[in-house]
């Protein structure tokens, strides 16, 4: 990449695999469980987090030298809450339909541990451009896992993808259902999200043994 130095590029690519916020750092699990029953919701959440984390990291990074260390967590929380509320208000006024889809995610974004985690671990000690890259990288790493989980949960749980009936109609018994296939309703419940994430972690660590913790 000509645009980015090697170190900067690593900020973007590391969180995608070997330092993934969900599978390695086990952050942001709450929202990964809550909203991955559908692929569409996963995608919306991934994009929203990318926006908030990229922007929030820049704001925190710009303020990093003036934030009092004693109340830094509160300051971070206020920054992310303010950003999210501003976006929510503006959407409500100018893009009402879109805001209806997103409003559910507002609370989930504010409480997302990845956002606080990146503010605290990275943006407080780095320059804005690097913080921005780190935010985008981590959001993408988070989003990828969300989308994988959402894909399997929607496919196996409802037999649809993005609302399209890819496996046939379960009530009219067409497609796969004609030969006795049944949707697994358990896939729609949160425990299965945890199990899917667990399987992803398993696969990832069996491919890259360096990730396995010693104890």
């Amino acid at each position, binding site marked *: 990449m000509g645009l980015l130095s090697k170190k900067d590029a690593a900020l973007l690519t590391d969180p995608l695999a070997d330092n993934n916020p969900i599978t390695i750092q086990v952050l942001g699990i709450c929202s990964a469980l*809550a*909203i*991955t*029953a*559908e692929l*569409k*919701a996963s995608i*919306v959440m991934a994009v929203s987090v990318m926006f908030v984390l990229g922007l929030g990291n820049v704001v925190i990074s710009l303020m990093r*030298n*003036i*934030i*009092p*260390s*004693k*109340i830094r967590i*509160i*300051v971070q929380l*206020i920054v992310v809450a*303010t950003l999210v*509320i*501003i976006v929510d*208000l*503006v959407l*409500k*006024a*100018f893009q*009402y339909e879109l805001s*209806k889809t997103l*409003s*559910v*995610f507002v*609370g989930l974004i504010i409480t997302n541990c990845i956002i606080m985690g990146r503010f605290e671990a990275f943006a407080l000690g780095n320059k804005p451009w690097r913080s921005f890259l780190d935010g985008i990288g981590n959001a993408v790493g988070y989003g990828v896992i969300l989308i994988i989980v959402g894909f399997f*949960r*929607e496919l196996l*749980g409802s037999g649809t993808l993005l*609302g399209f009936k890819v496996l046939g109609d379960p*009530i009219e018994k067409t497609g796969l259902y004609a030969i006795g296939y049944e*949707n697994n*309703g358990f896939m*729609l*419940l949160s425990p299965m999200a945890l199990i899917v994430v667990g399987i992803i972690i398993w696969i990832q660590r069996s491919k890259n043994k360096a990730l396995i913790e010693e104890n």
Partner: protein
Amino acid sequence: MSKRTDSNGYTMIFAIVMVLIVGSLLAFLASSLKPRIKENERIEKQQNILYAMGVNENDESSANFVSTTVAGEEFAKYIKKQIVIEGDKISESDDAYLIDVKKEQANAKAGKVRKLPLFVGEKDGKIFYVAPIRGKGLWDAIWGYVSMDENMVVQGAYFDHKGETPGLGANIKQRYFMDDFIGEHLMSTSGDFKGITVAKGNNDPKNEDKTDYEVDAIAGATITGDGVSAMIKADLALYVPYFKSLKNK
């Protein structure tokens, strides 16, 4: 980093300044955008009511309102009368659709008379009675509009929610759920109000039996579904006297 930022005085001043800036920024935004947001909500109510009586732009599988630019016109065209039922008193008002159901429910709890709005629409020569309902889902409020004929047989329903889980409870606003209500009876043949229960495993997933007072539930959305059953039972029961009086005319 200098030690300056660690002193108590600096911390206090920083906190105060930050709160002032953030607070006034948000207050300014909220109040300057309020008229637009209110207007959007007003149009949405019109769209919801029209949706319930079948004036919408649904395609094969997704639910679509009439566009915001024509919502006002269409509303005036299809809604013939807006009735407010207040105890025994029945009046007409062109702003009945702006009645806040949440406030009225609170009024009823406080022992006051609740205003019940009912919208009488006409489409293709058929009369629709559309009533608003409101209740609690798993996380937050759920609400909707149900259109009925004069026998309280459901002709259409629209549900919405504030914060139900995406992919689970949030699916009450999907076509496959809302359309199940169409044709369902709310009253038994003997004239008792039965409501409609969102039921699991009701042996009628294709929803062919329209007089079982049940529709099929959404997997993983038990509490939201119960909320839908409860708000239909509680809020539509209030309209029963009015529908009975229609018959005696």
